[in-house]
């Protein structure tokens, strides 16, 4: 750790270094502003040189993100950011690669790239802005919109069952999954830090309010007054406690999570302990997402170590080269049966 801190001092980066001169053009009051600010605040303390960041995005409101970061950036085409980012990382493994995407970009048109980037475990950070709506195309339901949602393209209510993005990430065997809230600076910064330090494909789902087309979608957790009783912030190794007075917790009852009140009948000892490395716990937390009887979980839901594709590729190139020797064009051209015409 001391090395990293020394590194950070040498780099001497501040938030300003990540703010380019151009004007940010999201709607006033959009949740994206908070995510951007927290990204710009967090990166300077992570010990990575500014020129080694590459922000890759697809299409959608959130995908304008790279234009607002003074780093290398690539605003690409709809849904393809994880695939482009894969090429960037494999071409230059020294880069720190971020993918910025949304629920339409990442889980509708780009769903295939998303699951494969996660399963391959290429070292990159994928941040999904989930506002449960298509914003840039002005208000159609997305693959994360809830059933019954009335939008421009579902005037009688959506009959399209939604994805739970973090659960899809778990299904794709992602090695790091976090969920954060646009208005929660602390949670965002923690997720960004942990994600970037994680080796492998990291997935951060950000609940983000779209003021124009889906305002109030996450009201219960966005509102400071109701948040303590609607949100569960999990910490590895600690019991699952929530509530304004820290008086509620989660137990396992009949193989399902259940909210209990701490007091005479239940104590902290009875509560489930969060374990980032246990997919059963992660799955259990994700099951709570759409259940009105349970709080919505946030924090680092999963973090496990696994070999990364990029390292394995580099290792394979090194190993094969050690065994066969560095290939030359001469070797290659003469690798078949050769004859000479004199």
């Amino acid at each position, binding site marked *: 750790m001391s090395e990293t801190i020394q590194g950070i001092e040498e780099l001497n980066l501040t938030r300003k270094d990540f703010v380019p001169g151009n004007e940010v053009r999201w709607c006033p009051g959009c949740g994206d502003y908070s995510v951007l600010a927290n990204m710009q605040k967090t990166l300077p303390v992570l010990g990575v040189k500014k020129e080694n960041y590459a922000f890759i995005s697809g299409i959608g409101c959130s995908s304008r993100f790279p*234009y607002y970061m003074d780093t*290398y950036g690539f605003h690409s085409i709809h849904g393809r950011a994880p695939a482009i980012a894969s090429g960037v990382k494999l071409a230059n493994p020294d880069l720190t690669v971020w993918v910025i995407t949304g629920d339409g970009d990442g889980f509708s048109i780009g769903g295939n790239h998303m699951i494969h980037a996660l399963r391959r475990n290429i070292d990159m950070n994928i941040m999904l802005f989930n506002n449960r709506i298509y914003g840039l195309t002005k208000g159609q339901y997305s693959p994360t919109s809830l059933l019954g949602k009335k939008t421009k393209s579902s005037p009688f209510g959506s009959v399209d069952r939604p994805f739970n993005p973090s659960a899809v990430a778990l299904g794709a065997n992602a090695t790091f999954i976090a969920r954060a809230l646009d208005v929660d600076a602390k949670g965002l910064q923690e997720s960004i830090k942990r994600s970037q330090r994680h080796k492998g494909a990291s997935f951060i789902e950000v609940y983000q309010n779209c003021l124009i087309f889906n305002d109030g979608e996450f009201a219960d957790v966005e509102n400071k007054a109701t948040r303590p009783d609607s949100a569960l912030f999990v910490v590895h190794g600690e019991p699952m406690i929530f509530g304004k007075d820290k008086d509620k917790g989660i137990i396992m009852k009949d193989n399902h999570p259940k909210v209990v009140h701490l007091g005479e009948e239940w104590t902290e000892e009875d509560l489930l302990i969060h374990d980032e490395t246990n997919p059963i716990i992660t799955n259990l937390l994700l099951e709570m997402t759409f259940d009105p009887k349970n709080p919505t979980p946030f924090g680092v839901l999963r973090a496990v170590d696994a070999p990364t594709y990029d390292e394995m590729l580099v290792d394979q190139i090194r190993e094969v080269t050690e065994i066969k020797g560095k290939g030359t064009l001469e070797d290659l*051209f003469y690798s078949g049966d050769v*004859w000479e*015409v004199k």
Partner: protein
Amino acid sequence: MAKKVISINEATIRFAGDSGDGMQLTGTRFTEATAIVGNDLKTIPNYPSEIRAPLGTLAGVSAFQLMFGSQRVFTPGDLPDTLVAMNPAALKVHLKDLKKGGTILANANAFSEKNLKMATWEANPLTDGSLDGYTVYSIEMSKLVGKALENSDLTSKGIERTKNMFALGVLFWMYNRPIEPTEAWLRKKFAKNPSIAEANITAMKTGYNYGETTEIFTTSYAVEKADLPKGKYRNITGNVAVAYGLVAAAEKAGKELFLGSYPITPASEILHTLSGLRNHGVKTFQAEDEIAGITSAIGASYAGDLAVTTTSGPGMALKTEAIGLAIITELPLVIVNVQRGGPSTGMPTKMEQSDLLQAVHGRNSDAPIPVIAAQDPADCFDCAFEAARVAMKYMTPVILLTDGYLGQGSGPWKIPDPKKLPKIEVSHPDSSAIGEDGFMPYARDENETRPWAIPGTPGLEHRIGGLEKENLTGMVSQDPENHQVMTDIRARKVENITQDIPPSEIHGDTKGKVLVLGWGSTHGAIHVAVERARAKGQSVSQLHLRWVSPFPSDLKTVCDGFDEILIPEVNSGQLALLLKAELIRPIHQLNIVRGEPFRASEIEEKINEILG
């Protein structure tokens, strides 16, 4: 009885059998032996798209044809002189192509009642006299290998499988080819299973000796060495040549090679070849789909690699949007399309040249792109090298068109001296590129190309993307005047490549009655047809285009020297359409779409028709 050896100039052989009979392998081994003898040659495989169609059926027939000669050979031959038919279905499918009076070598044991019925023969053609116009060698191959290998460890099924080596042995004798290279190859291939190697070698020798000793064969043929330019040669398929060309270009540019690709027939061998070259530093990424194949390559190019994606028609369709992204971001990228029959899934294992318009124009908006087309398997090396060079010099994606015939067909390749391959100059800006107004990611050099500034370079942080950018600054811009400027620059950038295209080389006179103009894999058939026409005294010349976008700058002048222009294409007239617009004059067309290359005779007939 001493057997006669007749000297011939050229021969065309077709190996045909069930898809499980190993015909591709048999053909390839014959090809290697023929190459070693020093003949010029061309080959073409012809196999079904099913991996194992039902045994013995017409649908399951797999074939391999080669032509070899003591003179230059430009095509795998029109009609075979000799047909190897391992079963009745193979004979049924291919007999119609055999030259009149040609030779048939058949495995008599396979002509059972059941197999005959499955191949829709009413009676056994080997015995009912229907093949009287041909020289038929009906040999009990299965029985003979069974006897020769009765003491081997192999199962009876395993022994039966060696019958292709028996047939190969007979042909080695018949055409005086050495068996030693195949013997060595078998020992190497089955190093872990010596009994299989030995059984196959025995089967091959049994076939060879059968030709030598039995009295049914009276004659064998000798084909002298071809008069090829001096140098060292090896046989190569177009797909392997593309792979090698890319590796060479990467090395000459001092770049790492990145391939993003999704498996597709008939392009997969490029992925296979490159994935085996880790010790050359080659990074291959088998993507989740065609789109990820190209977009990962675009990402790798952005980060500074020589990036490539390989595919065939349906994959090109899927990559279309991303090609537009590479065009607007002005990133170097090589896109290889090994064309096949279409539309849609079409005929995956058959060749066609019908993706030309897709390559040149098939994108939303004005999205110009350079397109280069290889003309024979060895030329695939040069075209891949050139495509990569141009991509990096002009900061643009480049499409390389080959096809299933080039990709899977083979011919001798005069191995270039690696030291003499030209160096590819590539430069990446550093912080010295920062001017008073900061770094300009869309600044222009004399060719109007922008700098290739790669992530990791301090001070040059900038954003690119699919949204239109302001020239010079690279800021997002929806300004009307700027869009005009950028659209014009993108067109001129491609047009500028004409300065790298050497003057057109005309085969024949530079002025005359008919110019046969082609592109891609029709080169050989056109060449042969033009040669024959010229030998008859007809005023015919050939021009074959490598760059089909942009056209060479002297194209109109060259065409003006001829009264008539004929364009033979394995499509419904795509180059003709482009050239009618370019030259504004009538053009004769010869178009076939049978999933097969032209026969030279078809082009010859068309020339006769034009000359009246």
